[in-house]
């Protein structure tokens, strides 16, 4: 048995069943047929702590009413719940915090979080300040660890942004709680919270965050981080909301610590205390470290495709105004159907972004406060209207109905695109501000929509019995203004995108400079592809088409060539916009608490 077992066991876990618990351990005699190797391997698998030290467990189990550790933390938590107009808040004594980071691991272990997950993190500030020890004078180097968790804000951005109302601010304690089973895993709160508090958990498909160990507090126990701090630097206190409000509202310069986001964004309640001067020029440990953010591919696809679709519907409207009636009439059913398919694809792509897509319907709940909710609802209306419109067009229902439905499609579509822009504009990121994002999204629609409409139009002419006549009659030439729109929109968009690169020369590490560096360094390949695709697809090919259509045209040669060139234009434009949108997510510099050396 020995040799066989060993051979079989090589590189594998030894089966527990091999070692019957009844057999004695080595040194105590035992089965003569077992070699010492067998005996030791078996003994190695026997867990003895409980048997050998049993008396001590009994002592321990003789149950204490209060946890033993309470003697060290009872002064660090409030005696009772907050009163009217009050709430719980974390308080951090920076002078006591020495950077051991035990709070992070205590949170992880005492809350049973997943591998690598913790609701608390530790950052670093460095700088120089006036000498504080009275020994000599001049500047002295300074560093400070900053432990941070949820700040249980008075005006929580996670709650405001959540499309499914998976957040609540407890009316008594003020703790901002996340309802894990309500969450659909859209991750929007990870963008709205300026403190990077909610974190997405891929295993569960939801975000999770600190709840100040509320059920511990409810029974007089301290939160994990408070329990785990060797120097008692973290405590929970009761604060008056009015006092906090007075200190934070309309005080754009106020932040929790240097380098933290402005507190005016969400009115955080944590207080960081220090009796020692803190240099205003302090920088975060990760101040100069740049890493691309998550590129959110499903979102990028969803954004670009909704904008392509909306743009196509608008282009369809424009065609009616500028193109020959035959052309417009020929195009319309195809453009409507094609744009509808793109819209459906866009909405389909967006579900890949959700951790729990089956619960996506809940997104109507946040309509009153969440731009994401509004976007989802608006685009749902848009898709429904587009379907009705496409149906009406294909069935050639009354022109009045088609016009009404068509207007409704365009209005809801444009509203949806603006909702999209608002989603990002409210996150407090400089590069995502409305003045930049809204034009970007609209220009995407303006550049790609006509391309889709024209491509489908070309296809319609090719398959339609009246197509050949229309082409000969100058249908294509009448659509030249749309090519002009493509070129102008593309050039305007590239210019708009290029503005951020001017910040490469910023003297300090501004948010825009970070973005510009990322775009030209880590994301250089993507940026180059983006510009190339736009220049060829949005400028060169449309101009070639203008030339092609200005010549005398024939349905047999010009139309196939046009169709090929239009398809390539469309492909390049969409690919270019997708690349731009991935950069949009990857290169943004987010407000956050000071990070650690990285």
């Amino acid at each position, binding site marked *: 048995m020995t040799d066989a077992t060993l051979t079989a066991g090589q590189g594998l876990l030894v089966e527990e069943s091999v070692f019957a618990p009844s057999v004695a351990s080595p040194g105590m005699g035992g089965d003569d047929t077992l070699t010492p190797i067998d005996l030791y391997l078996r003994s190695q698998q026997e867990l003895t702590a409980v048997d050998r030290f049993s008396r001590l467990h009994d002592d321990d189990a003789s149950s204490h009413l209060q946890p033993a550790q309470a003697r060290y933390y009872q002064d660090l938590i409030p005696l009772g719940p907050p009163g009217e107009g009050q709430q719980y808040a974390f308080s951090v004594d920076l002078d006591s915090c020495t950077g051991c980071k035990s709070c992070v691991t205590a949170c*992880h272990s005492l809350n049973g979080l997943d591998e690598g997950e913790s609701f608390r993190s530790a950052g670093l500030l460095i700088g120089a300040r006036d000498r504080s020890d009275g020994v000599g004078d001049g500047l002295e180097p300074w560093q400070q660890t900053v432990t941070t968790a949820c700040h249980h804000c008075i005006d929580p951005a996670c709650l405001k942004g959540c499309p499914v109302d998976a957040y609540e601010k407890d009316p008594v304690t003020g703790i901002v709680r996340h309802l894990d089973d309500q969450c659909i895993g859209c991750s929007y709160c990870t963008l709205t919270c300026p403190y990077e508090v909610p974190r997405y958990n891929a295993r569960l498909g939801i975000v999770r965050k600190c709840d100040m160990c509320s059920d511990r507090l409810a029974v007089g126990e301290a939160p994990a981080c408070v329990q785990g701090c060797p120097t008692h630097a973290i405590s929970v206190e009761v604060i008056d909301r009015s006092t906090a409000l007075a200190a934070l509202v309309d005080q754009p310069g106020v932040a929790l610590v240097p380098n933290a986001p402005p507190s005016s964004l969400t009115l955080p309640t944590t207080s960081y205390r220090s009796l020692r001067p803190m240099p205003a020029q302090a920088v975060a440990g990760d101040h100069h470290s740049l890493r691309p953010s998550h590129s959110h591919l499903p979102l990028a696809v969803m954004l670009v495709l909704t904008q392509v679709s909306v743009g196509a519907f608008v282009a369809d409207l424009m065609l009616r105004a500028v193109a020959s009636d035959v052309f417009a009439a020929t195009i319309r059913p195809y453009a409507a159907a094609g744009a509808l398919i793109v819209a459906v694809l866009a909405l389909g792509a967006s579900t890949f972004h959700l951790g729990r897509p089956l619960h996506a319907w809940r997104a109507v709940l946040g309509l009153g406060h969440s731009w994401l909710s509004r976007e989802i609802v608006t685009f749902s209306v848009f898709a429904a209207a587009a379907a009705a419109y496409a149906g009406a067009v294909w069935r050639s229902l009354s022109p009045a109905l088609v016009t009404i439905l068509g207007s409704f499609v365009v209005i809801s579509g444009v509203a949806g695109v603006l909702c999209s822009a608002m989603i990002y504009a409210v996150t407090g990121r400089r590069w995502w501000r409305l003045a930049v994002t809204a034009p970007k999204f609209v220009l995407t629609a303006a550049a790609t929509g006509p391309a889709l409409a024209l491509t489908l139009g070309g296809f319609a002419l090719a398959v339609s019995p009246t197509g050949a006549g229309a082409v000969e009659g100058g249908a294509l030439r009448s659509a030249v203004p749309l090519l002009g729109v493509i070129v102008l929109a593309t050039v305007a968009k590239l210019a708009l995108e290029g503005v951020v690169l001017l910040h490469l020369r910023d003297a300090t590490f501004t948010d825009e400079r970070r973005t510009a560096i990322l775009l030209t360094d880590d994301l250089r390949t993507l940026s180059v592809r983006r510009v190339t695709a736009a220049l060829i697809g949005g400028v060169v090919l449309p101009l070639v088409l203008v030339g092609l259509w200005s010549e005398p045209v024939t349905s047999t040669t010009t139309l196939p060539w046009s169709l090929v060139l239009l398809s390539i234009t469309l492909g390049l434009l969409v690919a270019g916009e997708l690349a731009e949108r991935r950069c949009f997510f990857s290169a943004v510099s987010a407000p956050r608490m000071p990070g650690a050396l990285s």
Partner: protein
Amino acid sequence: MTADSTPRLRTRDGALTRELLREPAGHGIGQVPARTRPDAITAMVCGYCSTGCSLDIHLKDGRAVNLTPTTRYPVNLGMACPKGWEALAVLDAPDRATVPLLRQDNGKLEPVGWDVALSAFTDRMKAVQAEHGPESVAFLSTGQIPTEEMALLGALAKFGMGMVHGDGNTRQCMATSVVAYKESFGFDAPPYTYADFEQSDVIVLIGSNLTVAHPIMWERIAKNRNDPRVIVIDPRRTETAMAATHHIPLAPKSDLVLLYGLAHLLIEGDLLDEAFIDSNTSGFAEVRRAMKRYRPAMVADETGISVETLIDLAQMIGRGERVSFWWTMGVNQSHEGVRTAQAIINLALMTGNIGRAGTGANSITGQCNAMGSRLFSNTTGLLGGRDFTNPDHRQRVAHDLGIGVERIPAQGSMSYDRIVEGIHRGTIKGLWVIATNSAHSWINQREIRGLFERLEFLVVQDMYTTTETAELADLVLPAAGWGEKEGTFINSERRIGVIKKVKKAPGQALADFYIFKLLADAWGCGDLFEQWSDPEAVFAILARLSAGQPCDFSGVTDHVEVEERGGVQWPFPSALAGTVPEPERRLFADGRFYTPDGRARFVVDQPTAPMEQTDERYPLVLLTGRGSSSQWHTGTRTSKSAVLTSLAPRGPYVEMNPDDARENGIEPHRWVLVRSRRGTLRARAFVTPTVPAGSIFVPMHDEAANRLTFPAYDPHSRQPSYKHCAVSIEPVGAGPNASL
């Protein structure tokens, strides 16, 4: 939008919510995750550093599922550092050694059975010994395994296998303190107990980043109610320096001059405890004479510390009621560490700051069982803090162990560096490395890796197959780790603590104890160790061996008693058996030391310059040390925990002063190349004023750090000087965020 408006449409409970459900654990522990709610709790000491914290292991069906720090343990009072919290997590790593690996003819390490591994070990090692003599096989022990195991290792290697040379990785961290204490106190005896942190009114930390390297000891300083003055002597403005009341940013390696300068001021200022000096010490006249030349102006010049500051410091030390001095690697890992440690001891002795609450010249140890290793590894010292060259000592050990005295070598072992040199000279041909990662941690790494390849047979016994050293091995023996085996550690304050078996070792990994027993049998000397049947039996043997030594703990019977007493500090002689002494005890309350005349000895010497000076080509001093509290040495364990990894910098980095960055054209976060005469290191620049101009800092956890270090050693302790060599630094790559 509020909680009440849409109550029915909000799901407040369910499988996801219950993932985070907490329940009362009972057992005096508050709420814990419901999924890992324990049915029993057992306490054991941590297996990382020498603080020796106790951790309550949460057990479910006998298996460890979680842990919390033990509240009622006199060391840590319910706290742990990140490594302690994550101690269990690293046992499940995928690169655990689960089966013996033997290097085949094709050059690859392949799995073999234990029987094959045991014969490979004995056949190959015996062949080496037969050809090159018994001394040609050496071993490198560790401060990471229990005392019982390291004693068995030392006894087996020397008394059973006939090896003469064996040393431990403790040479890299504690050798300096050992030698300093032996000479000054007559025995390797750190005199303090952690309560001294709480009772001092002046605390002097020298070369110690306590808040990061020993956070739980800093916890004890934070509990000090005397509003103590905390003086940190360190070139870098570390987290500890920030937390102190006074930071003395001395020039690198000017510590001995600084300490002598303080002694000068104490003597000149008549801030001495003359009565104590007269009755309890020897050699002070020489100190008085030798310190004359360390006038403040000269000391200020060499250390960069102003005369006023020096005077302030001397006043604080001289006038303090209870002054304690603590040092760690900044002192130990130096080319003149022993004399520096003794200069600290001198200050404590001349001011009478020893043997009383809140005082002491206190070396803070590194590894969890460095103190066990110092007494019982049977490497450079004979079991029980004895001397191989002393016939009485050999006789006593032979008698206690029931072995022939001729089995005990009459010469001490070569130190680590000389074993390495032996490989170089070809006198060491076989090497057995246990629970240490020399190929990462030894100074001047390029040399040692080359030398390991020259060995005829290299055996590495470790928990992981991926250590830099295991990858060079001819034979890898898979070891069970902390949490998977039994034994005791001795912490910095001489406290013996118990470790237990609370997790199953993976695959065929075995406790080092079992591996040693199997090797003893395979070698043919198993009969010598019949009495060494299990760790507890060995504990009894060691307790017996300790009797009569300063480290006497013969008053304790077994592991259960050690645990019941909340750990046991030596000395605990049989006279104390059955009594309940103070839980925190210090040495030398009676003013008697372990020297033949009972007096502590003052030792002074001439300061010397570091071996490698900076010059035009290598203008900067390289400092190395602990990077963060979540990292342990070469990272073989701590790199396996996702939480610990997230608390440490992501990639290699080098800290440098803004002035040096400017001068060398280095922007923050830029990739740089650090060169020394021995090698290069690539890292990102972390520009921070906390590192003084003229120096750079690289964490020792970076595998490349020791490509740069210069192989200088303290002449007395043979401890490597990791904290000083000459380097240059230059930017590489194109831009601030250039990725190479």
